[in-house]
């Protein structure tokens, strides 16, 4: 076999190998989803969604955890979104001339890479102990808000950067102040991108488990929170809890709860991808 034929063969083989590798990635995802659905789907029911936790697997439900997750999501969004968007706007629109811009830049990059357990430690010391919030929804949401802040900032900056310079100049040339330009032109034009970032960040927050464990979520909470200082459970924590129980039926519950969690995260991701595509098309 001459060298050219060998090269062509290698090329053909790689085409197959590459396809297999890609399929393997997708296949693993499929296997894993299939296993989950097979185990957990039968357990999903109105009763499962609306029941309190219980020592009897067949009676137990995710009512508390689901509402806890919703509470966390809302509070986290309330805390993180204004901060993240404002910080992103500052860094992109004001901060660039400032001397500490480079510092902020490195800071944000590094924050994005800090493992989530470390945020848990921060939350434990600052929110749980120092501010005496205890293992409350507020403490958890504050911790997760800090965790997703870098994601929000980066997303906001990217969205803002995509707004053409001509739009800013047009506004400024009409006598708009910097903030008026941002408020009336830059933010509306980048809203799609920012919203995408917000949703992706929230989907991350919803699935986080380790920081919640570190700030000390309780094992058994048979009621949904009614105010920010209440104790809570959350879906990932409930799942972790059930996983660590050896009885098979709790494994089934865990699978069912995972399906619910995945519906939420995949749903959020889907919405984000949809919004991103729509927003990209709208860019002038």
């Amino acid at each position, binding site marked *: 076999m001459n060298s050219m034929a060998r*090269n*062509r063969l290698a*090329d053909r083989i*790689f*085409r197959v*190998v*590459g*396809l297999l*590798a*890609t399929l*393997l*990635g*997708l296949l693993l*995802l499929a296997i894993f989803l299939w*296993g*989950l659905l097979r185990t957990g789907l039968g357990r999903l029911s109105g009763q499962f969604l609306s029941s309190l936790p219980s020592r009897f697997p067949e009676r137990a439900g995710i009512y508390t955890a689901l509402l806890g997750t919703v509470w966390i999501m809302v509070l986290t969004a309330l805390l993180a979104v204004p*901060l993240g968007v*404002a*910080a992103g706007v*500052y860094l992109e629109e*004001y*901060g660039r001339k400032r001397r500490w811009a480079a510092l*902020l830049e*490195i*800071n*944000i*990059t*590094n*924050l994005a*890479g*800090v*493992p*989530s*357990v*470390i945020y*848990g*430690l*921060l939350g*434990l*010391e*600052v929110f749980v102990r120092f501010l005496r919030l205890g293992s409350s929804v507020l403490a958890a949401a504050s911790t997760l808000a*800090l965790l997703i*802040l*870098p994601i929000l900032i980066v997303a906001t900056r990217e969205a803002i950067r995509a707004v053409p310079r001509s739009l800013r100049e047009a506004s400024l040339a009409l006598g708009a102040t*910097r*903030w008026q330009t941002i408020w009336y032109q830059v933010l509306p034009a980048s809203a799609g991108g920012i919203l995408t970032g917000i949703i992706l960040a929230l989907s991350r927050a*919803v*699935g986080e*488990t*380790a920081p919640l*464990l*570190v700030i*000390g979520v309780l094992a058994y909470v048979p009621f949904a929170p009614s105010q920010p200082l209440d104790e809570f459970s959350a879906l*990932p924590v409930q*799942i*972790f809890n059930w*996983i660590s129980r050896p009885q098979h039926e709790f494994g089934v519950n865990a699978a069912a709860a995972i399906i619910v*969690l995945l519906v939420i*995260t*995949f749903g959020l991701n889907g919405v984000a991808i949809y919004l991103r595509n729509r927003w990209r098309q709208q860019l002038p």
Partner: protein
Amino acid sequence: MKTNERLIEALLAMSAGVGVLTTAGILWILVVEAVHFFQQVPLSAFLTDTQWTPLFADKHFGILPLVAGTLLTTAVAVAVALPLGLTIAVYLNEYVAPALRNTLKPLLEVLAAVPTVVYGFFALTQVTPFLQRLVPGLAGFNALSAGLVMGIMILPLVSSLSEDALGAVPRSLREASYAMGATRLQTAFRVVVPAASSGVTVSVVLAISRAVGETMIVAIAAGQEPRLTANPLVPIETITTYIVQVSSGDVAYGTLEYNTIFAAGITLFVLTLGLNNVGYWFRKKYQERYE
């Protein structure tokens, strides 16, 4: 009007300051608690002792077993994600039509959107029993299946970011190679991958950093037994697992035992910080220059 502008700028700057405060807070907490720790445990013991038993009567404070556990699971994960991710990146970039590529990439990225507690469940209940049939002597908690699953989790990080880097290599370089009679494979590995090497490196570094900091998969599936070993078949403990285990077990506030989680935390922080900055530095320094 002017004052209004100033006020707004100040408010925005304060928001940006929260990021700095967060970093400062993390550093402050880790350092303060770790200083307490190192007042009682010499740094040399921390770095050289081969046992980590801070909660027992016979106390040892060697971080090495935890670091070894962390590196072991990371190594397994990278051993999965690097070849697979790079193959996928090259395949998507060189062999697949853009339309298909644009569907396959987000599909693969779904793998990174799965909450890690879910992966932990998967590793423990599916992967480990499956592997136990293939590998005799595989413990119920082990670094292998946790690492494998973690590899799946970081796979899209490698494949997507590397593909972005490969896609940024100018067409003219590819054409030059094809025009010399190169096959796609030769073009990919002799021209495109080397030209995009810094982008590929960054993606790998980021993936490693993610694996080092990952908590739930290892906490659920890798065990809680600090041990200085390179054997992926036995239970080990990672730094992150230790932090979760001890902090959720409520060790007495202000005791040496409590401070150990911050000593472990600062080790983890330094590891990931180092990796992130290597990545950042690479990106800044070697931003691809082609022509």
